[in-house]
């Protein structure tokens, strides 16, 4: 194993899969120069036919990905910032998510939409959304959100071999994060959560960039005698409900950490699943550490105050233990 940056792991996934499948193409705005670095070198390696810089035309880009995929060419459609998914939303929500159903199963749509999510660098409201809740609700697109370089590579390679539309979201702030990436043909299955840290007292489900907050919080909590288990779903569609329930069965407590806005967040949904299927395991309220229902402002202090961090996770866990103590007379 070698340590690699998350961005580099993604780059390798593109290269390996484009090497493997000569029909796979990649396009997007300025992918040749590569704003985030993930597509660097691809144009030189695979040529102007398979790696294309496009005009700023998101509605066409998403729709063409659907069409090319249906016609037999899997597509990596690079959308740059996830806020630009909205400009191209129709083809994701009304076409990609529905065509397999509408055609009675005829359509295979191996299209992977790549975009960066999340705040933290004062890119302000239109470049900092974390829109996986919207995508999760569409009912026909898979959603992957890696938190480590290894998962980034393995999930992306799985997406690129699949036959269903997938949105692959890159936690923007994690691009430079280093991590071990297994050598060889590293694939990570969809719908399989990973337990980053084993613990017996509380389950912290964390997604994407918030995994590191959860792990940081777990260290602080250990010092207070609380052992947290940190579970990372890795894909939100499909969602590994069983792994989450298994952990909560053990710990009896749940906090979900999620960088999306609170209302109808992934955290809400995971909390709801556990309040249903895992109700009898629960010893205390299910807390969510999410972004309040607002877009992120520019001023760094405000942005930081709104985003999840380790301290907020610690506070949420402490609160439910406080509750539990109050309860046990």
């Amino acid at each position, binding site marked *: 194993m070698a340590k690699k940056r998350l961005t580099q792991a993604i780059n390798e996934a593109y290269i390996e899969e484009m090497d493997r499948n000569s*029909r796979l*193409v990649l396009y997007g705005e300025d992918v040749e120069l590569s704003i985030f670095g993930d597509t660097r070198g691809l144009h030189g390696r695979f040529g102007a*036919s*398979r790696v*294309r810089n*496009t*005009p700023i*035309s998101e*509605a*066409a*880009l*998403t*729709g*063409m*990905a*659907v*069409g*090319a*995929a*249906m*016609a*037999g*060419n899997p*597509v990596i459609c690079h959308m740059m910032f996830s806020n630009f998914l909205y400009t191209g939303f*129709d*083809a994701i929500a*009304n*076409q990609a998510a529905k*065509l*397999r*159903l*509408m*055609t*009675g*199963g*005829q*359509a295979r749509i191996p299209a992977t939409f790549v975009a960066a999510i999340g705040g933290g660098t004062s890119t302000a409201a239109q470049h900092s959304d974390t829109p996986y809740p919207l995508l999760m609700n569409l*009912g*026909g697109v*898979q959603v992957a959100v890696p938190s480590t370089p290894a998962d980034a590579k393995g999930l992306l390679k799985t997406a690129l071999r699949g036959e*269903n539309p997938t949105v692959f979201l890159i936690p923007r702030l994690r691009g430079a994060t280093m991590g071990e990436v297994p050598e060889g043909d590293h694939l990570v299955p969809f719908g399989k959560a990973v337990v980053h840290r084993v613990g017996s007292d509380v389950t912290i489900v964390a997604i994407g960039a918030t995994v590191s907050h959860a792990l940081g919080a777990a260290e602080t909590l250990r010092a207070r005698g609380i052992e947290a288990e940190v579970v990372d779903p890795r894909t939100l*569609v*499909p969602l590994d409900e069983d792994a989450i329930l298994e952990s909560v069965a053990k710990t009896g407590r749940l906090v979900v950490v999620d960088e999306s806005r609170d209302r109808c967040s992934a955290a809400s949904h995971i909390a709801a699943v556990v309040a*249903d*299927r895992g109700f009898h395991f629960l010893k205390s309220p299910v807390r969510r550490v999410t972004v309040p229902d607002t877009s992120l402002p520019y001023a760094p202090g405000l942005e930081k105050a709104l985003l999840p961090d380790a301290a907020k996770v610690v506070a949420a866990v402490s609160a439910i233990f406080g509750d539990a103590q109050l309860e046990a007379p």
Partner: protein
Amino acid sequence: MNEVLTDRLVNEPSPAQLLAMLNVMVTIRRTEEQLGMDSKAGKLPGNVHLYIGQEAVAAGVCAHLGDDDFITSTHRGHGHFLAKGGKPRELIAEVHGKRTGACHGLAGSMHVADLSKGMLGANGIVGGGMAIAAGAALSAQLQGRGQVAVVFFGDGAASEGVLSEVFNIAALWKLPLVFVCENNLYSEFSPSATVTAGSLVDRPRPYGIPTTSIDGNDVVAVWAAAGEAVSRARQGLGPSFIEARTYRLRGHLEAEAGFIQTKYRTDEEVASWAKRDPIPAVAARLLAQGYLAEDGLAQIDSAVMLEVAEAVRFAEASEVPDMSYVEAAGFIRSAELGSR
């Protein structure tokens, strides 16, 4: 790859080709008349938007296409489905919501598709097929086997911004794409002139896309324009645009009488277009040239009627789909059904 590649740029279809198009047109007409009746009789679960009056466009364009060429269509997609080789019985069963339908009854009229024929789907989203067709054209270009993609859309759909995005990309990348705008003078209940500024046919011009406006009720004119456009596309010369001026002889949707309180077009207008019905016109032409017997149209017609009647029986006798069809076509599993 494809015998249609050998189509050369000639101005007239051969009598055999014209006869084949006539057959397609009659098939569309009779199938849709049946669906219109069934709709009014309350036999169909959902709405239908009929193509009656516009048959020459689908027939004339699709005459140049093989099974590995692609088309995308609109909410008014029966004609394109049939012209591209889809079977009447699969269409009729689909619109009846039966598992023997082209999409196992999951699509209905508005989404009917047959991928084995390169028909990537009617579409309930106005403009929804434009970028999909461009993507198919990109795939065609990458495969390098001379395939083309055709996007059918209405005059109303031309106002969707994605069209200009596709003009730009198709022109830049020289995609093998043919735009066929069926200008039937109405966008739902709005006359085109009230929702379309300036000249539709000129819109592709600034992108460097050749463009032409033709009589969409003349199948020979359609055939000639489409032949040129398809041949350009196959040769790698890029996209072309065709405005086909035509008219739908039926309502926007069959159910419209139920909710429309004021007429949005005059009886005279409808009558004047009925006189320009594309089917008798092509039959008369073949007759005049001696390629159709006096009762030739009637013969074609009875054969088609027979096929349609059989298709209706087939559809009626077919079973409705069960949940396994949804599961096979989606991501949901039985466990997820019902409440949880």
